[in-house]
Protein backbone atom coordinates (compact mmCIF):
# COMPACT_ATOMS: atom_id res chain seq x y z
CA UNK A 1 0.00 0.00 0.00
CA UNK A 2 1.30 3.42 -0.98
CA UNK A 3 1.60 5.58 2.14
CA UNK A 4 1.28 8.83 0.20
CA UNK A 5 -1.99 7.81 -1.43
CA UNK A 6 -3.31 6.64 1.92
CA UNK A 7 -2.32 9.94 3.55
CA UNK A 8 -4.08 11.91 0.80
CA UNK A 9 -7.24 9.80 1.19
CA UNK A 10 -7.19 10.20 4.98
CA UNK A 11 -6.58 13.93 4.52
CA UNK A 12 -9.61 14.32 2.20
CA UNK A 13 -11.68 12.20 4.58
CA UNK A 14 -10.64 14.38 7.53
CA UNK A 15 -11.54 17.54 5.57
CA UNK A 16 -15.04 16.22 4.85
CA UNK A 17 -15.47 15.25 8.51
CA UNK A 18 -14.27 18.72 9.50
CA UNK A 19 -16.76 20.34 7.12
CA UNK A 20 -19.68 18.22 8.46
CA UNK A 21 -18.65 18.97 12.05
CA UNK A 22 -18.62 22.67 11.14
CA UNK A 23 -22.13 22.32 9.62
CA UNK A 24 -23.27 20.84 12.93
CA UNK A 25 -21.63 23.73 14.78
CA UNK A 26 -23.26 26.35 12.54
CA UNK A 27 -26.74 24.91 12.97
CA UNK A 28 -26.48 24.35 16.73
CA UNK A 29 -28.25 27.27 18.36
CA UNK A 30 -29.79 25.81 21.49
CA UNK A 31 -29.36 23.17 24.16
CA UNK A 32 -31.97 21.07 22.37
CA UNK A 33 -29.85 21.25 19.17
CA UNK A 34 -26.76 20.24 21.10
CA UNK A 35 -28.35 17.31 22.94
CA UNK A 36 -31.01 15.93 20.57
CA UNK A 37 -30.29 17.60 17.23
CA UNK A 38 -33.23 19.99 17.66
CA UNK A 39 -35.59 16.98 17.13
CA UNK A 40 -35.46 17.77 13.39
CA UNK A 41 -33.00 15.21 11.97
CA UNK A 42 -33.82 13.65 8.57
CA UNK A 43 -34.80 9.93 8.78
CA UNK A 44 -32.04 8.76 6.41
CA UNK A 45 -29.40 10.62 8.41
CA UNK A 46 -30.85 9.32 11.68
CA UNK A 47 -30.87 5.70 10.51
CA UNK A 48 -27.31 5.84 9.15
CA UNK A 49 -26.17 7.52 12.37
CA UNK A 50 -27.90 4.80 14.41
CA UNK A 51 -26.38 2.02 12.33
CA UNK A 52 -22.86 3.40 12.18
CA UNK A 53 -22.83 3.99 15.95
CA UNK A 54 -24.11 0.44 16.46
CA UNK A 55 -21.42 -1.14 14.24
CA UNK A 56 -17.83 -0.58 15.37
CA UNK A 57 -14.57 -1.70 13.82
CA UNK A 58 -14.43 -4.81 15.94
CA UNK A 59 -17.84 -5.80 14.60
CA UNK A 60 -16.51 -5.81 11.04
CA UNK A 61 -13.09 -7.38 11.58
CA UNK A 62 -13.92 -9.52 14.62
CA UNK A 63 -17.22 -10.90 13.30
CA UNK A 64 -15.67 -11.94 9.99
CA UNK A 65 -12.93 -13.77 11.88
CA UNK A 66 -15.45 -15.58 14.06
CA UNK A 67 -17.48 -16.56 10.98
CA UNK A 68 -14.38 -18.00 9.29
CA UNK A 69 -14.23 -20.40 12.23
CA UNK A 70 -17.91 -20.99 13.10
CA UNK A 71 -19.55 -20.56 9.70
CA UNK A 72 -22.79 -19.10 8.44
CA UNK A 73 -24.96 -20.14 11.39
CA UNK A 74 -24.03 -16.69 12.70
CA UNK A 75 -26.42 -15.24 10.12
CA UNK A 76 -29.08 -15.73 12.81
CA UNK A 77 -27.44 -12.80 14.51
CA UNK A 78 -27.87 -10.67 11.38
CA UNK A 79 -31.50 -11.71 11.17
CA UNK A 80 -32.13 -10.80 14.81
CA UNK A 81 -30.15 -7.57 14.49
CA UNK A 82 -32.50 -6.52 11.71
CA UNK A 83 -35.68 -7.77 13.34
CA UNK A 84 -35.00 -6.66 16.92
CA UNK A 85 -32.25 -4.07 16.48
CA UNK A 86 -34.09 -2.23 13.69
CA UNK A 87 -37.73 -3.29 13.29
CA UNK A 88 -38.71 -3.63 16.96
CA UNK A 89 -36.30 -0.87 18.00
CA UNK A 90 -37.63 1.72 15.52
CA UNK A 91 -41.29 0.80 15.03
CA UNK A 92 -42.10 -0.19 18.62
CA UNK A 93 -39.53 1.26 21.04
CA UNK A 94 -38.48 4.20 18.85
CA UNK A 95 -41.94 5.63 18.23
CA UNK A 96 -42.81 5.43 21.93
CA UNK A 97 -39.45 6.86 22.96
CA UNK A 98 -39.79 9.78 20.59
CA UNK A 99 -43.31 10.53 21.78
CA UNK A 100 -42.47 10.25 25.46
CA UNK A 101 -39.27 12.23 24.93
CA UNK A 102 -41.24 15.06 23.34
CA UNK A 103 -43.94 14.97 26.03
CA UNK A 104 -41.40 15.08 28.83
CA UNK A 105 -39.04 17.41 26.97
CA UNK A 106 -36.26 14.89 27.65
CA UNK A 107 -32.80 15.57 26.21
CA UNK A 108 -30.92 12.42 27.18
CA UNK A 109 -31.72 8.79 27.86
CA UNK A 110 -31.35 9.17 31.67
CA UNK A 111 -33.56 12.26 31.50
CA UNK A 112 -36.26 10.23 29.74
CA UNK A 113 -36.24 7.69 32.58
CA UNK A 114 -35.90 10.35 35.28
CA UNK A 115 -38.75 12.51 34.05
CA UNK A 116 -41.02 9.56 33.38
CA UNK A 117 -40.85 8.77 37.10
CA UNK A 118 -40.39 12.34 38.21
CA UNK A 119 -37.11 11.43 39.88
CA UNK A 120 -33.84 13.31 39.74
CA UNK A 121 -32.29 10.34 41.49
CA UNK A 122 -33.10 8.00 38.58
CA UNK A 123 -31.62 10.52 36.13
CA UNK A 124 -28.49 11.10 38.20
CA UNK A 125 -27.97 7.41 38.95
CA UNK A 126 -28.36 6.45 35.27
CA UNK A 127 -26.01 9.27 34.26
CA UNK A 128 -23.49 8.10 36.85
CA UNK A 129 -23.58 4.48 35.67
CA UNK A 130 -23.09 5.58 32.04
CA UNK A 131 -20.33 8.01 32.99
CA UNK A 132 -18.42 5.32 34.89
CA UNK A 133 -18.89 2.31 32.60
CA UNK A 134 -19.24 3.65 29.06
CA UNK A 135 -15.62 4.95 29.01
CA UNK A 136 -14.50 1.29 29.17
CA UNK A 137 -16.40 0.57 25.95
CA UNK A 138 -15.20 3.85 24.43
CA UNK A 139 -11.58 3.01 25.35
CA UNK A 140 -11.91 -0.31 23.50
CA UNK A 141 -13.18 1.46 20.36
CA UNK A 142 -10.52 4.18 20.72
CA UNK A 143 -7.73 1.61 20.89
CA UNK A 144 -9.10 -0.03 17.73
CA UNK A 145 -8.94 3.29 15.86
CA UNK A 146 -5.50 4.14 17.22
CA UNK A 147 -4.10 0.74 16.23
CA UNK A 148 -5.24 1.52 12.70
CA UNK A 149 -3.24 4.77 12.60
CA UNK A 150 -0.28 3.06 14.28
CA UNK A 151 -0.11 0.19 11.79
CA UNK A 152 -1.07 2.05 8.62
CA UNK A 153 0.80 5.31 9.10
CA UNK A 154 3.65 3.99 11.21
CA UNK A 155 2.89 6.38 14.08
CA UNK A 156 3.70 5.72 17.71
CA UNK A 157 0.69 4.19 19.52
CA UNK A 158 0.36 6.89 22.18
CA UNK A 159 0.45 9.60 19.54
CA UNK A 160 -2.07 7.71 17.40
CA UNK A 161 -4.42 7.43 20.34
CA UNK A 162 -4.18 11.13 21.06
CA UNK A 163 -4.65 12.20 17.41
CA UNK A 164 -7.58 9.85 16.84
CA UNK A 165 -9.44 10.85 20.01
CA UNK A 166 -8.70 14.56 19.51
CA UNK A 167 -10.21 14.64 16.01
CA UNK A 168 -13.39 12.99 17.27
CA UNK A 169 -13.70 15.13 20.38
CA UNK A 170 -13.38 18.38 18.41
CA UNK A 171 -16.46 17.80 16.29
CA UNK A 172 -18.47 16.36 19.18
CA UNK A 173 -17.50 19.33 21.38
CA UNK A 174 -18.40 22.01 18.85
CA UNK A 175 -21.04 20.29 16.74
CA UNK A 176 -23.01 18.55 19.50
CA UNK A 177 -25.38 15.81 18.39
CA UNK A 178 -25.86 17.47 14.99
CA UNK A 179 -22.12 17.25 14.37
CA UNK A 180 -22.23 13.62 15.53
CA UNK A 181 -25.10 12.53 13.28
CA UNK A 182 -23.92 14.43 10.19
CA UNK A 183 -20.46 12.86 10.39
CA UNK A 184 -21.98 9.49 11.33
CA UNK A 185 -24.18 9.53 8.23
CA UNK A 186 -21.16 10.21 6.00
CA UNK A 187 -19.12 7.54 7.78
CA UNK A 188 -22.05 5.11 7.53
CA UNK A 189 -22.20 5.67 3.77
CA UNK A 190 -18.50 4.81 3.42
CA UNK A 191 -18.97 1.70 5.56
CA UNK A 192 -21.91 0.60 3.43
CA UNK A 193 -19.99 1.13 0.21
CA UNK A 194 -16.98 -0.79 1.51
CA UNK A 195 -19.05 -3.78 2.61
CA UNK A 196 -21.15 -3.91 -0.60
CA UNK A 197 -17.98 -4.02 -2.71
CA UNK A 198 -16.46 -6.68 -0.45
CA UNK A 199 -19.55 -8.90 -0.60
CA UNK A 200 -20.16 -8.50 -4.33
CA UNK A 201 -16.51 -9.04 -5.25
CA UNK A 202 -16.26 -12.14 -3.08
CA UNK A 203 -19.40 -13.71 -4.55
CA UNK A 204 -18.35 -12.89 -8.13
CA UNK A 205 -14.85 -14.25 -7.50
CA UNK A 206 -16.13 -17.54 -6.08
CA UNK A 207 -18.89 -18.29 -8.59
CA UNK A 208 -21.92 -16.58 -7.05
CA UNK A 209 -24.41 -18.61 -5.05
CA UNK A 210 -22.86 -21.88 -6.22
CA UNK A 211 -20.07 -21.03 -3.76
CA UNK A 212 -22.46 -22.12 -0.97
CA UNK A 213 -22.48 -25.68 -2.31
CA UNK A 214 -18.71 -25.67 -2.78
CA UNK A 215 -18.30 -24.57 0.86
CA UNK A 216 -20.80 -27.23 2.01
CA UNK A 217 -18.66 -29.84 0.23
CA UNK A 218 -15.70 -28.81 2.40
CA UNK A 219 -17.40 -30.00 5.62
CA UNK A 220 -14.95 -32.92 5.84
CA UNK A 221 -12.06 -30.44 6.19
CA UNK A 222 -13.21 -29.06 9.54
CA UNK A 223 -10.31 -29.47 12.03
CA UNK A 224 -10.80 -32.43 14.33
CA UNK A 225 -10.90 -30.37 17.50
CA UNK A 226 -13.72 -28.20 16.16
CA UNK A 227 -15.59 -31.23 14.85
CA UNK A 228 -15.36 -32.78 18.32
CA UNK A 229 -16.92 -29.60 19.74
CA UNK A 230 -19.90 -29.99 17.39
CA UNK A 231 -18.78 -28.23 14.14
CA UNK A 232 -20.57 -29.76 11.14
CA UNK A 233 -19.25 -27.57 8.35
CA UNK A 234 -19.34 -23.85 7.51
CA UNK A 235 -22.85 -23.89 6.04
CA UNK A 236 -24.54 -25.86 8.82
CA UNK A 237 -25.44 -25.15 12.43
CA UNK A 238 -23.26 -26.92 15.01
CA UNK A 239 -24.64 -30.08 16.52
CA UNK A 240 -27.54 -29.34 18.88
CA UNK A 241 -26.50 -28.98 22.54
CA UNK A 242 -22.78 -29.25 21.69
CA UNK A 243 -20.18 -26.87 23.15
CA UNK A 244 -19.97 -24.93 19.87
CA UNK A 245 -23.77 -24.76 19.63
CA UNK A 246 -23.98 -23.16 23.07
CA UNK A 247 -21.19 -20.73 22.24
CA UNK A 248 -22.89 -19.73 19.00
CA UNK A 249 -26.38 -19.46 20.43
CA UNK A 250 -25.31 -17.52 23.51
CA UNK A 251 -23.25 -15.24 21.24
CA UNK A 252 -26.36 -14.73 19.17
CA UNK A 253 -28.50 -14.05 22.21
CA UNK A 254 -25.92 -11.69 23.67
CA UNK A 255 -25.12 -10.13 20.32
CA UNK A 256 -28.72 -9.39 19.58
CA UNK A 257 -27.94 -7.45 22.29
CA UNK A 258 -30.72 -7.99 24.45
CA UNK A 259 -28.77 -4.89 25.50
CA UNK A 260 -29.01 -3.19 22.12
CA UNK A 261 -32.51 -2.02 22.90
CA UNK A 262 -31.31 -0.17 25.98
CA UNK A 263 -28.07 1.44 24.80
CA UNK A 264 -28.21 5.10 25.84
CA UNK A 265 -26.23 6.37 22.82
CA UNK A 266 -28.67 4.58 20.47
CA UNK A 267 -31.94 5.36 22.30
CA UNK A 268 -31.19 9.07 22.19
CA UNK A 269 -31.24 8.86 18.36
CA UNK A 270 -35.02 8.22 18.48
CA UNK A 271 -35.52 11.59 20.13
CA UNK A 272 -33.74 13.40 17.29
CA UNK A 273 -36.57 13.07 14.77
CA UNK A 274 -39.69 15.17 14.45
CA UNK A 275 -42.39 12.48 14.44
CA UNK A 276 -43.14 8.77 14.18
CA UNK A 277 -43.36 9.13 10.42
CA UNK A 278 -39.61 9.73 10.29
CA UNK A 279 -38.98 6.55 12.28
CA UNK A 280 -41.13 4.47 9.93
CA UNK A 281 -39.28 5.93 6.96
CA UNK A 282 -35.94 5.29 8.68
CA UNK A 283 -36.74 1.56 8.76
CA UNK A 284 -35.85 1.33 5.07
CA UNK A 285 -32.26 2.61 5.06
CA UNK A 286 -31.69 1.26 8.60
CA UNK A 287 -32.56 -2.34 7.73
CA UNK A 288 -30.58 -2.33 4.48
CA UNK A 289 -27.59 -0.89 6.34
CA UNK A 290 -27.62 -3.57 9.05
CA UNK A 291 -28.27 -6.36 6.51
CA UNK A 292 -25.12 -5.40 4.63
CA UNK A 293 -22.95 -4.38 7.60
CA UNK A 294 -23.49 -7.57 9.57
CA UNK A 295 -24.43 -9.99 6.76
CA UNK A 296 -21.36 -9.27 4.61
CA UNK A 297 -18.72 -10.08 7.29
CA UNK A 298 -20.45 -13.39 8.15
CA UNK A 299 -20.86 -14.52 4.56
CA UNK A 300 -17.44 -13.33 3.40
CA UNK A 301 -15.77 -14.63 6.59
CA UNK A 302 -17.22 -18.10 5.99
CA UNK A 303 -16.42 -18.05 2.26
CA UNK A 304 -12.74 -17.24 2.90
CA UNK A 305 -12.41 -20.94 3.68
CA UNK A 306 -13.38 -21.72 0.09
CA UNK A 307 -11.14 -18.99 -1.32
CA UNK A 308 -8.05 -20.09 0.58
CA UNK A 309 -8.75 -23.74 -0.22
CA UNK A 310 -8.83 -22.89 -3.94
CA UNK A 311 -5.71 -20.71 -3.83
CA UNK A 312 -3.53 -22.19 -1.08
CA UNK A 313 -5.14 -25.55 -0.33
CA UNK A 314 -5.69 -24.44 3.26
CA UNK A 315 -8.72 -23.50 5.33
CA UNK A 316 -8.96 -19.94 6.67
CA UNK A 317 -7.78 -20.81 10.19
CA UNK A 318 -4.56 -22.23 8.78
CA UNK A 319 -3.88 -18.93 7.00
CA UNK A 320 -3.85 -16.90 10.22
CA UNK A 321 -1.81 -19.22 12.41
CA UNK A 322 0.33 -17.23 14.81
CA UNK A 323 3.90 -18.57 14.58
CA UNK A 324 4.65 -17.69 18.22
CA UNK A 325 1.62 -19.15 19.98
CA UNK A 326 0.84 -21.81 17.38
CA UNK A 327 -2.84 -20.78 17.58
CA UNK A 328 -4.93 -19.05 14.90
CA UNK A 329 -5.46 -15.29 15.33
CA UNK A 330 -8.87 -14.79 13.72
CA UNK A 331 -8.66 -10.99 13.96
CA UNK A 332 -6.07 -11.17 11.16
CA UNK A 333 -8.41 -13.03 8.82
CA UNK A 334 -9.95 -9.96 7.19
CA UNK A 335 -6.66 -8.11 6.53
CA UNK A 336 -5.07 -11.30 5.19
CA UNK A 337 -8.05 -12.03 2.92
CA UNK A 338 -8.15 -8.47 1.59
CA UNK A 339 -4.42 -8.56 0.89
CA UNK A 340 -4.87 -11.81 -1.04
CA UNK A 341 -8.18 -11.54 -2.80
CA UNK A 342 -9.17 -7.94 -3.26
CA UNK A 343 -7.73 -5.38 -5.73
CA UNK A 344 -5.30 -2.84 -4.28
CA UNK A 345 -7.72 0.08 -4.52
CA UNK A 346 -10.11 -1.79 -2.25
CA UNK A 347 -7.50 -1.96 0.48
CA UNK A 348 -7.66 1.86 0.71
CA UNK A 349 -11.46 1.83 0.79
CA UNK A 350 -11.42 -0.84 3.48
CA UNK A 351 -8.98 1.17 5.60
CA UNK A 352 -11.27 4.19 5.48
CA UNK A 353 -14.25 1.92 6.23
CA UNK A 354 -12.56 0.74 9.42
CA UNK A 355 -11.59 4.27 10.43
CA UNK A 356 -15.16 5.46 9.79
CA UNK A 357 -16.60 2.60 11.85
CA UNK A 358 -14.38 3.44 14.83
CA UNK A 359 -14.95 7.20 14.64
CA UNK A 360 -18.73 6.96 14.28
CA UNK A 361 -19.04 4.74 17.34
CA UNK A 362 -16.64 6.82 19.42
CA UNK A 363 -18.39 10.11 18.63
CA UNK A 364 -21.74 8.76 19.88
CA UNK A 365 -20.02 7.51 23.03
CA UNK A 366 -18.28 10.84 23.76
CA UNK A 367 -21.60 12.63 23.34
CA UNK A 368 -23.46 10.18 25.59
CA UNK A 369 -20.81 10.22 28.33
CA UNK A 370 -20.49 14.01 28.15
CA UNK A 371 -24.22 14.66 28.38
CA UNK A 372 -24.52 12.11 31.20
CA UNK A 373 -21.85 13.88 33.24
CA UNK A 374 -22.85 17.46 32.46
CA UNK A 375 -26.61 17.28 32.11
CA UNK A 376 -27.78 14.24 34.08
CA UNK A 377 -25.30 13.80 36.87
CA UNK A 378 -24.23 17.36 37.59
CA UNK A 379 -26.94 19.72 36.48
CA UNK A 380 -30.06 17.69 37.16
CA UNK A 381 -29.04 15.49 40.08
CA UNK A 382 -26.31 17.36 41.97
CA UNK A 383 -27.29 20.97 41.19
CA UNK A 384 -31.02 20.04 41.40
CA UNK A 385 -31.82 21.51 38.00
CA UNK A 386 -30.27 24.91 38.56
CA UNK A 387 -28.31 26.85 35.92
CA UNK A 388 -30.51 25.72 33.01
CA UNK A 389 -29.00 28.44 30.88
CA UNK A 390 -25.66 26.70 31.21
CA UNK A 391 -26.78 23.29 29.96
CA UNK A 392 -24.49 23.29 26.93
CA UNK A 393 -21.35 24.44 28.77
CA UNK A 394 -21.96 21.68 31.32
CA UNK A 395 -22.43 19.08 28.57
CA UNK A 396 -19.26 20.36 26.87
CA UNK A 397 -17.34 20.15 30.13
CA UNK A 398 -18.68 16.59 30.42
CA UNK A 399 -17.38 15.79 26.93
CA UNK A 400 -13.91 17.02 27.91
CA UNK A 401 -14.00 14.89 31.07
CA UNK A 402 -15.07 11.93 28.89
CA UNK A 403 -12.15 12.62 26.53
CA UNK A 404 -9.54 12.78 29.30
CA UNK A 405 -11.01 9.84 31.23
CA UNK A 406 -11.24 7.59 28.19
CA UNK A 407 -7.70 8.40 27.03
CA UNK A 408 -6.33 7.63 30.50
CA UNK A 409 -8.22 4.34 30.54
CA UNK A 410 -6.99 3.45 27.06
CA UNK A 411 -3.37 4.10 28.13
CA UNK A 412 -3.59 2.24 31.41
CA UNK A 413 -5.99 -0.67 31.16
CA UNK A 414 -4.62 -4.12 30.61
CA UNK A 415 -5.38 -5.70 27.21
CA UNK A 416 -7.44 -8.37 29.02
CA UNK A 417 -9.90 -5.78 30.29
CA UNK A 418 -10.10 -3.98 26.95
CA UNK A 419 -11.04 -7.25 25.26
CA UNK A 420 -14.07 -7.70 27.52
CA UNK A 421 -15.02 -4.01 27.77
CA UNK A 422 -17.72 -4.09 25.11
CA UNK A 423 -19.40 -7.17 26.57
CA UNK A 424 -19.23 -5.59 30.04
CA UNK A 425 -21.01 -2.47 28.89
CA UNK A 426 -23.67 -4.30 26.85
CA UNK A 427 -24.43 -6.60 29.77
CA UNK A 428 -24.68 -3.70 32.18
CA UNK A 429 -27.11 -1.84 29.89
CA UNK A 430 -29.37 -4.88 29.75
CA UNK A 431 -29.31 -5.53 33.50
CA UNK A 432 -29.67 -1.92 34.66
CA UNK A 433 -31.63 -0.11 31.96
CA UNK A 434 -33.74 -2.56 29.99
CA UNK A 435 -36.49 -3.32 32.57
CA UNK A 436 -36.63 0.37 33.54
CA UNK A 437 -36.81 1.47 29.90
CA UNK A 438 -39.51 -1.07 28.95
CA UNK A 439 -41.52 -0.14 32.04
CA UNK A 440 -41.20 3.56 31.25
CA UNK A 441 -42.48 3.05 27.72
CA UNK A 442 -45.10 0.35 28.12
CA UNK A 443 -46.20 -0.15 31.73
CA UNK A 444 -48.31 2.52 33.30
CA UNK A 445 -48.38 0.63 36.59
CA UNK A 446 -44.61 0.79 37.13
CA UNK A 447 -43.57 2.99 40.02
CA UNK A 448 -40.55 5.13 40.86
CA UNK A 449 -39.56 2.90 43.75
CA UNK A 450 -40.02 -0.21 41.61
CA UNK A 451 -37.72 1.14 38.90
CA UNK A 452 -35.09 2.39 41.36
CA UNK A 453 -35.03 -0.98 43.16
CA UNK A 454 -34.86 -2.83 39.83
CA UNK A 455 -31.95 -0.74 38.55
CA UNK A 456 -30.02 -1.07 41.82
CA UNK A 457 -30.52 -4.81 42.10
CA UNK A 458 -29.68 -5.27 38.40
CA UNK A 459 -26.43 -3.33 38.83
CA UNK A 460 -25.53 -5.19 42.03
CA UNK A 461 -26.24 -8.64 40.59
CA UNK A 462 -24.44 -7.85 37.34
CA UNK A 463 -21.44 -6.38 39.23
CA UNK A 464 -21.11 -9.29 41.65
CA UNK A 465 -21.43 -11.82 38.84
CA UNK A 466 -18.81 -9.99 36.76
CA UNK A 467 -16.37 -9.66 39.66
CA UNK A 468 -16.69 -13.07 41.27
CA UNK A 469 -18.50 -15.62 39.10
CA UNK A 470 -18.27 -15.23 35.29
CA UNK A 471 -14.72 -16.45 34.84
CA UNK A 472 -13.97 -14.71 31.55
CA UNK A 473 -14.47 -11.38 33.29
CA UNK A 474 -13.61 -12.13 36.92
CA UNK A 475 -10.22 -13.52 35.83
CA UNK A 476 -9.41 -10.35 33.86
CA UNK A 477 -10.56 -8.01 36.64
CA UNK A 478 -8.62 -9.92 39.30
CA UNK A 479 -10.63 -9.00 42.43
CA UNK A 480 -11.80 -12.56 43.03
CA UNK A 481 -8.21 -13.84 42.82
CA UNK A 482 -7.03 -11.13 45.20
CA UNK A 483 -9.71 -11.78 47.83
CA UNK A 484 -10.36 -15.49 47.53
CA UNK A 485 -7.34 -16.84 45.67
CA UNK A 486 -9.41 -18.16 42.73
CA UNK A 487 -10.25 -16.58 39.39
CA UNK A 488 -13.93 -17.45 39.96
CA UNK A 489 -15.82 -18.68 43.01
CA UNK A 490 -17.49 -21.30 40.84
CA UNK A 491 -14.48 -22.14 38.69
CA UNK A 492 -14.71 -25.36 36.64
CA UNK A 493 -18.51 -25.46 36.91
CA UNK A 494 -21.13 -24.50 34.33
CA UNK A 495 -21.97 -21.43 36.45
CA UNK A 496 -18.58 -19.96 35.54
CA UNK A 497 -19.69 -19.59 31.90
CA UNK A 498 -23.20 -18.28 32.60
CA UNK A 499 -23.27 -14.72 31.31
CA UNK A 500 -23.93 -11.88 33.81
CA UNK A 501 -26.95 -10.82 31.71
CA UNK A 502 -28.60 -14.12 32.53
CA UNK A 503 -28.45 -13.24 36.22
CA UNK A 504 -28.74 -9.44 36.27
CA UNK A 505 -31.56 -8.98 33.77
CA UNK A 506 -34.14 -11.42 35.21
CA UNK A 507 -33.43 -10.21 38.75
CA UNK A 508 -33.75 -6.57 37.76
CA UNK A 509 -37.01 -7.28 35.89
CA UNK A 510 -38.44 -9.30 38.76
CA UNK A 511 -37.60 -6.68 41.38
CA UNK A 512 -39.05 -3.91 39.18
CA UNK A 513 -42.32 -5.83 38.82
CA UNK A 514 -42.68 -6.92 42.46
CA UNK A 515 -41.75 -3.57 44.04
CA UNK A 516 -43.93 -1.69 41.54
CA UNK A 517 -46.91 -3.83 42.42
CA UNK A 518 -46.29 -3.41 46.12
CA UNK A 519 -45.91 0.36 45.94
CA UNK A 520 -48.51 1.12 43.28
CA UNK A 521 -51.11 2.41 45.73
CA UNK A 522 -48.71 4.74 47.49
CA UNK A 523 -47.52 6.39 44.29
Amino acid sequence: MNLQILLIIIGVYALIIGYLGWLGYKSTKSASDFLVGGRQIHPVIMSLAYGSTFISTSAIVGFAGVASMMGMGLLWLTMLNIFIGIFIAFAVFGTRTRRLGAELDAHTFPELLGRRYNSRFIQGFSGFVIAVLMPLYAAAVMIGGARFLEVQLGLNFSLSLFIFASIVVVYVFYGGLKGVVYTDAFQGTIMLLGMIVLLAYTYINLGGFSSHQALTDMAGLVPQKLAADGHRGWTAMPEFNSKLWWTMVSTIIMGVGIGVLAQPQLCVRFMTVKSSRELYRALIPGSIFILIMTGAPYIVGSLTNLYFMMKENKIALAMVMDPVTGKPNIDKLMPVYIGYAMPEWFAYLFMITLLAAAMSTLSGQFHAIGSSIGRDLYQQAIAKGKHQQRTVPFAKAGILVAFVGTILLAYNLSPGIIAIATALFFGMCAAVFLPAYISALFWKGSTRLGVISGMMSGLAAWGIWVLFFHEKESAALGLSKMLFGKTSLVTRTTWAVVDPIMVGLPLSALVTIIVSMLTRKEE
Partner: protein
Amino acid sequence: MFGFGDFWVAAAYILCILSTVLCVVYGLKHWNDDEDIPAAVHPPDENLDFEETI
Protein backbone atom coordinates in the same frame (compact mmCIF):
# COMPACT_ATOMS: atom_id res chain seq x y z
CA MET B 1 -31.25 -25.94 0.16
CA PHE B 2 -29.55 -23.15 -1.87
CA GLY B 3 -26.35 -25.11 -1.45
CA PHE B 4 -26.36 -24.78 2.35
CA GLY B 5 -25.48 -27.71 4.58
CA ASP B 6 -28.66 -27.64 6.63
CA PHE B 7 -32.11 -26.16 6.84
CA TRP B 8 -31.34 -23.80 9.72
CA VAL B 9 -28.58 -21.89 7.94
CA ALA B 10 -30.72 -21.62 4.79
CA ALA B 11 -33.56 -20.35 6.99
CA ALA B 12 -31.29 -17.73 8.59
CA TYR B 13 -30.09 -16.56 5.14
CA ILE B 14 -33.63 -16.21 3.83
CA LEU B 15 -34.98 -14.66 7.03
CA CYS B 16 -32.25 -11.98 6.88
CA ILE B 17 -33.61 -10.94 3.51
CA LEU B 18 -37.26 -11.31 4.57
CA SER B 19 -36.68 -9.19 7.71
CA THR B 20 -35.22 -6.46 5.53
CA VAL B 21 -38.19 -6.76 3.16
CA LEU B 22 -40.52 -6.50 6.17
CA CYS B 23 -38.80 -3.29 7.27
CA VAL B 24 -38.93 -1.83 3.75
CA VAL B 25 -42.60 -2.74 3.21
CA TYR B 26 -43.60 -1.53 6.68
CA GLY B 27 -41.67 1.69 6.13
CA LEU B 28 -43.39 2.30 2.78
CA LYS B 29 -46.84 1.38 4.16
CA HIS B 30 -46.48 3.82 7.03
CA TRP B 31 -44.64 6.42 4.95
CA ASN B 32 -47.09 9.16 5.81
CA ASP B 33 -48.47 7.84 9.09
CA ASP B 34 -48.18 10.28 11.86
CA GLU B 35 -49.58 10.98 15.24
CA ASP B 36 -50.39 14.31 16.73
CA ILE B 37 -47.20 15.76 18.02
CA PRO B 38 -47.80 15.90 21.75
CA ALA B 39 -47.45 19.16 23.58
CA ALA B 40 -44.76 18.95 26.21
CA VAL B 41 -46.41 18.08 29.50
CA HIS B 42 -43.23 18.63 31.43
CA PRO B 43 -42.86 22.31 32.13
CA PRO B 44 -40.07 23.49 29.83
CA ASP B 45 -36.91 24.26 31.71
CA GLU B 46 -36.47 27.92 32.10
CA ASN B 47 -34.11 29.36 29.54
CA LEU B 48 -33.13 25.88 28.35
CA ASP B 49 -33.17 26.89 24.73
CA PHE B 50 -31.75 30.29 25.29
CA GLU B 51 -29.29 31.12 22.58
CA GLU B 52 -26.58 32.37 24.90
CA THR B 53 -26.19 28.85 26.21
CA ILE B 54 -23.74 28.01 23.47
